[in-house]
């Protein structure tokens, strides 16, 4: 295989020969499986779980291929390969998802082995991005850079990535299994809406350990993850997860796919009984075979050594000058740039949400540009966030203005991270075989309505999240404003919820009233915003805080008064 080395300084796990051999073998295995399907040896029923385990879905127009971006971090070299594949085998673009992965929408089954082969050249694959297995483990997109970080989530996400890869026991689970890890004070990984959510922290001796939240998830029956164990020591990290997975594999429901997620098992057994089963299983798994040795952790940690930061003063003259001279840049700086732990550096969010655009889509030209910028400004590394944006995590403050100008010229400079224009939308009926309604056009209409960056900033933090059906891929349940597409006798309608929260104070939004049409939905969002602005105590009171204080009544009244 024609291997292309990823940038040595990128904060990714760097493959060795064994990792490469594994991925190469899996590509060959899938090539044979595709042949066996095309020859009829495998039925569609038998092939489907196999193709899903290789990230391949059948969608409305073609196959869709979902590429794994482990914990959302990749190198510039890898992004360039994604762009090349998008040009050669797809239609010149890709879609970054809430799962911090990338999807192509126009893939041919017969091309897939060749695509996987190309991915393997840059140490990437599509394994376990779908199917009833443990999926790509996600973490904080600011990992390794955030000022409030306590534990580096990549280390443990990588350990889980390896341990769950082709796990012989847990590859035919009752349903998919999603794990998220956060190692910072603020949760940017939405841990409590995952099957297992891990909060990494340190005890008073400084040793790392984990709080395990189990049974979160959205979909038809949304649940917030429940605390199953407050402290699991590092050495028991894998064993405890194994215990959870074994209990789930044995007792999780298999009679009804809507009841098959672990959240339903936890709910039906009750937290106490579930915990007891897990603890019993765990007690037997504490032998040396399942202990996570500190040497293994250290070995993995070395892959994520901090890049060679320069010694810089925290204050940047160049930045201050640019800020004073260019108000549009000053706005982007205030909205899209976060504090870095190294002095003189900052974390920059690249918005994939231009006003009126398709959330999460990036053209291959844009991918190439971001790869160049990552190389020039951020040690050849970038991240994908679960709100469908990209992040350059280690940018010198001195370079921020140059970076922004280049981004802005490519329609990547929107100043809306966390604001009302930063909408999450699933593919919806434009692409998805399961959808009830389209999501993207509504996202486009809302972001166009609120295009003015200053108006967005006045409104402040307000996440809108849209799903095209109850599977909730767009996280609508945890949107401050959530929108769910429904089908009423062949017409697309949208149900609005308010008060959802994906952070540690996780909350599922409440339905505001009857579903409305697309046009009405855009007006309703604007009405909600107006009511909020009229009612907030001051500019620092966020939408969800005002909502908590004044309740739903004023919002309902305004939207449904005319009925």
């Amino acid at each position, binding site marked *: 295989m024609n291997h292309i080395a990823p940038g040595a300084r990128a904060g990714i796990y760097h493959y060795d020969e*064994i*990792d490469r*051999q*594994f991925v190469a*073998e*899996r590509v*060959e*295995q899938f090539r*044979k*499986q595709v042949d*066996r399907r095309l020859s009829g*040896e*495998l039925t569609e029923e*038998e092939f489907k*779980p*196999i193709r899903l385990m290789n990230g391949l879905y059948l969608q409305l127009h073609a196959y869709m291929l979902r590429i794994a971006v482990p914990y959302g971090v990749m190198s510039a070299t890898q992004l360039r390969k994604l762009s090349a594949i998008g040009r050669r085998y797809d239609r010149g673009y890709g879609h970054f998802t809430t799962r911090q992965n990338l999807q192509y929408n126009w893939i041919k089954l017969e091309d897939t082995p060749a695509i996987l082969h190309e991915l393997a050249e840059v140490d990437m694959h599509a394994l376990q991005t779908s199917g*009833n297995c443990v999926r790509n483990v996600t973490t904080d997109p600011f990992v390794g850079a955030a000022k409030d970080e306590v534990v580096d989530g990549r280390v443990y996400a990588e*350990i889980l990535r*390896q*341990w*769950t*890869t*082709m*796990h*012989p*026991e*847990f*590859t*035919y*689970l009752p349903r998919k299994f999603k794990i998220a890890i956060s190692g910072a004070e603020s949760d940017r990984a939405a841990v409590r809406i995952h099957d297992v959510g891990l909060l990494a922290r340190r005890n008073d001796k400084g040793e790392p350990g984990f709080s395990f939240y189990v049974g979160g998830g959205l979909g038809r029956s949304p649940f917030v993850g429940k605390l199953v164990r407050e402290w699991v020591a590092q050495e028991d990290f*894998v064993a405890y997860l194994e215990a959870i997975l*074994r209990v789930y*594999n*044995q007792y999780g429901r*298999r009679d009804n796919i809507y009841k098959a997620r672990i959240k339903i098992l936890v709910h039906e057994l009750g937290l106490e009984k579930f915990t007891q089963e897990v603890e019993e299983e765990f007690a*037997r798994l504490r032998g040396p*075979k*399942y*202990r*996570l*040795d500190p040497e*293994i952790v250290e070995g993995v940690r070395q892959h994520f050594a901090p890049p060679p930061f320069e010694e810089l003063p925290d204050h940047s003259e160049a930045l201050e000058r640019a800020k004073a001279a260019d108000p549009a840049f000053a706005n982007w700086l205030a909205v899209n740039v976060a504090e870095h732990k190294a002095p003189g550096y900052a974390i920059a969010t690249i918005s994939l949400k231009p006003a009126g655009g398709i959330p999460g889509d990036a053209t291959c030209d844009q991918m190439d540009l971001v790869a160049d910028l990552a190389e020039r400004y951020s040690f050849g590394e970038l991240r994908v966030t679960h709100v469908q944006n990209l992040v350059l995590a280690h940018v010198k403050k001195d370079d921020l203005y140059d970076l922004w100008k280049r981004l802005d010229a490519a329609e990547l400079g929107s100043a809306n991270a966390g604001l009302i224009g930063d909408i999450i939308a699933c593919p919806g009926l434009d692409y998805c075989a399961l959808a009830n309604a389209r999501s993207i056009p509504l996202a486009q209409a809302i972001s166009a309505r609120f295009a003015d960056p200053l108006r967005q900033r006045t409104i402040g933090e307000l996440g809108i999240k849209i799903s095209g059906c109850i599977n909730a891929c767009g996280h609508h349940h945890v949107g401050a404003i959530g929108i769910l597409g429904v089908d009423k006798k062949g017409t697309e309608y949208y149900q609005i919820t308010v008060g959802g929260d994906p952070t540690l104070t996780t909350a599922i939004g409440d339905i505001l009233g009857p579903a409305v049409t697309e046009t009405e939905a855009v007006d309703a969002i604007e009405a909600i915003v107006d009511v909020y602005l009229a009612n907030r105590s001051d500019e620092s009171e966020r939408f969800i805080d005002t909502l908590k204080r004044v309740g739903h009544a004023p919002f309902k009244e305004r939207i449904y008064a005319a009925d």
Partner: protein
Amino acid sequence: MPLIENGRIGEDAWSFIPDGEPVPNDRPVIISFERWQAERDSFDGRNAKLGVRLKSGTLAGAIAADLDRFALVAVEFAKFRDGRGFSTARELRERYGYTGEIRAVGHVIPDQYLYLVRTGFSSVEAPEGTNPDSWANALTEVTIAFQPSLDDTAPLSLLRRKLKVG
């Protein structure tokens, strides 16, 4: 039905006796777990080998106390997608120390064979007309594993080792 063992089609010394039919005393037979529960006393003093077949919803714990009576446990897969059997085998081996034969029966596909071996299965009852090459390939096409399991090479670490064929 063809029996797959060590990647090849093997001889099957066992036969399954459906509930209600007389159980021969002179050769190895497999009976259902339900029959075992109902008629266990009738097997006292039996010399020929006995095996038991567990439905996919019957977990290892149900048979744990009686394991010394069986030279074979057959674990049923109702559908190949129903992966409970992988945990059943693993529990039989690791939690209950079972050393007899564990056989996968029901709907399994060659693409699962490596997983079966690694969770402690010794043999697989494959459907009539199965392609033997697919079973043989399944054990050799991937030579890396990232976690300890029940096949017989010593783990390099919790995370990674080569399978013995590599």
